[in-house]
């Protein structure tokens, strides 16, 4: 884990309100595992005060990329960063996606900015010889990040303007129906709005599909020293798990998704 100031290479809009920020960080590029995040300080001011968590999106050599929505005051500051501007990052943080166990195909399901951790995860799985399919949904075509490097993408839009007309759960159902792959050899990874994760979880539960989810919740420290990021567990000894250090990636069986708030900020 490193705390350092790097220099921005670019920060640019790649789909409607989807921005990518890239910078060279050899130590992070080398250490980071899929599903881990960086905690980034918007600027030196105390307003905004706290760091923001961003999943590592992709690593190419020593170049690290994050993607983000311009949502509030923190991200608005990232959006006006220019090449050469300093960027204060801490990480990699969190427990990576759990990739142990037997599976031959992985379905990476993302809603909106939930696409963030998928490229680095897809790359890793691919290098392990696992088939990767991406199901990526958004409200409309213009919000979809159409990235040629995304492995086997299936797009879903609420308004039908691109790919499957409907949400990612619908697209997943269709894919599974058409697919010749045996469901036993599948592993699902998902990231997106909490309500999307809930409906995906109940779908997977019905079909007996193993699902790993990457969660978002309000954080202060990102390293386990504030106890600010609890999510309720489905039984077990402890009532809560801390998303920043025990997560953000969980087997959906272990947590109570309903305990996650709908709103942030």
């Amino acid at each position, binding site marked *: *884990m*490193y*705390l350092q100031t790097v220099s921005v290479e670019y920060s640019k809009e790649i789909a409607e309100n989807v921005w990518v920020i890239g910078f060279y960080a050899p130590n992070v590029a080398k250490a980071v595992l899929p599903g881990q995040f960086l905690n980034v*300080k918007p600027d030196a001011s*105390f*307003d*905004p*005060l*706290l*760091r923001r968590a961003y999943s590592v999106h992709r690593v190419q050599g020593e170049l690290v990329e994050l993607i983000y929505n311009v949502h509030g005051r923190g991200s608005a500051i990232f959006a006006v960063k220019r090449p050469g501007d300093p960027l204060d990052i801490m990480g990699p943080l969190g427990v990576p996606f759990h990739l142990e166990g037997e599976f031959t195909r992985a379905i990476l399901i993302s809603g909106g900015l939930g696409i963030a951790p998928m490229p680095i995860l897809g790359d890793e799985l691919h290098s392990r010889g696992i088939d990767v399919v991406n199901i990526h949904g958004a409200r409309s075509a213009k919000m979809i990040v159409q990235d040629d490097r995304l492995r086997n993408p299936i797009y879903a839009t609420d308004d039908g303007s691109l790919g499957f007309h409907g949400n990612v759960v619908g697209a997943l159902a269709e894919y599974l129906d058409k697919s010749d792959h045996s469901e036993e050899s599948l592993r699902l990874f998902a990231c997106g709005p909490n309500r999307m994760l809930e409906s995906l979880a109940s779908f997977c539960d019905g079909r007996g599909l193993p699902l790993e989810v990457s969660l978002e*919740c*309000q*954080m*202060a*420290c*990102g*390293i*386990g*020293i*504030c*106890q*600010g*990021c*609890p*999510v*309720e567990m489905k039984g077990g000894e*402890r*009532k*809560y798990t801390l998303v920043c*250090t025990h997560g953000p990636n969980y087997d959906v069986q272990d947590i109570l998704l309903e*305990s*996650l*708030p*709908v*709103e942030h*900020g």
Partner: protein
Amino acid sequence: MSTELTIRNATFKNPVLTASGTFGYGLECPAFVDVSQLGGVVTKSISRKPRDGNPPQRIAETSAGMLNSIGLANVGVDVFLAEKLPALRKAGATVVVNIAASSIEEYAYVLERCEEHEGIAGYEINVSCPNVKDGGLSFGTSCPAVAEITRDLRKRTEKLLAMKLTPNVTSIGEFARACEAEGADAVSCVNTFVGMDIFVDSRRPKIATITGGFSGPAILPMALAKVWEVRKAVNIPIIGIGGICTAEDALKFLIVGASLIQVGTALFVDPGVGPTIAEGIAAYMDRHGMKSLNELIGSLDTSLQPSLVAAGWE
């Protein structure tokens, strides 16, 4: 030049401690943070039994500050003494145990359990806890309750006993005087202010408990004024807390009258800022030719302030 300071029988190698609840048990911190370079580590508030803490969400960001309602989540005194304390000692930390409780008996119980163990420099008593006997009202806003806790705990330990005061009272000086009178070695000023925030679209509170504890750089001027009020009220050492992010901030508290300071919320932005602040204080002392912390503590110069009796009302 030395930045060492002793209060009662606890010696701190520099005046920078980490504040309770903002540094976990001092063990979660990343590898680049060396706890032995800190003046001390104040633990998360420890209670008799383990506590899950409050439901989410527990955190909200505000302008230059944040709200929290962690609900004193902690492992409980048994696990603390069995697992956390030995690890902290091994890491070379000077350990101050912060204690939370909902009755005087419980404060006494936790402190006495700690007394059985080596390696504790002293205690900080968090009185911003709900007093069950008093229907859940905070001990911290009742001067007799704070006095009683101090009196009771003083009898039970020869170690450093610091009472951590809440700023949410009309006259914090009065509380400090009560602590001094009952034998406290120091007062820690301050715990969080009461704050609140809401989402306007859903019209719901941002944190589960509606109101929460307000901390961070936003509160610094108020915390400093509280330390000044306490400085004028008592002679025992003050531990200054509230919004400290830089060496300059820390110096303000020392100059106004604090003997030690604690860094809280700033650790969420930079967990390694404690030693940086300690170095900054030492550099300032060097620059000003100061040999010991005592030349700094309470050295505020008000000689040029105009007489407000003359300048003031009518």
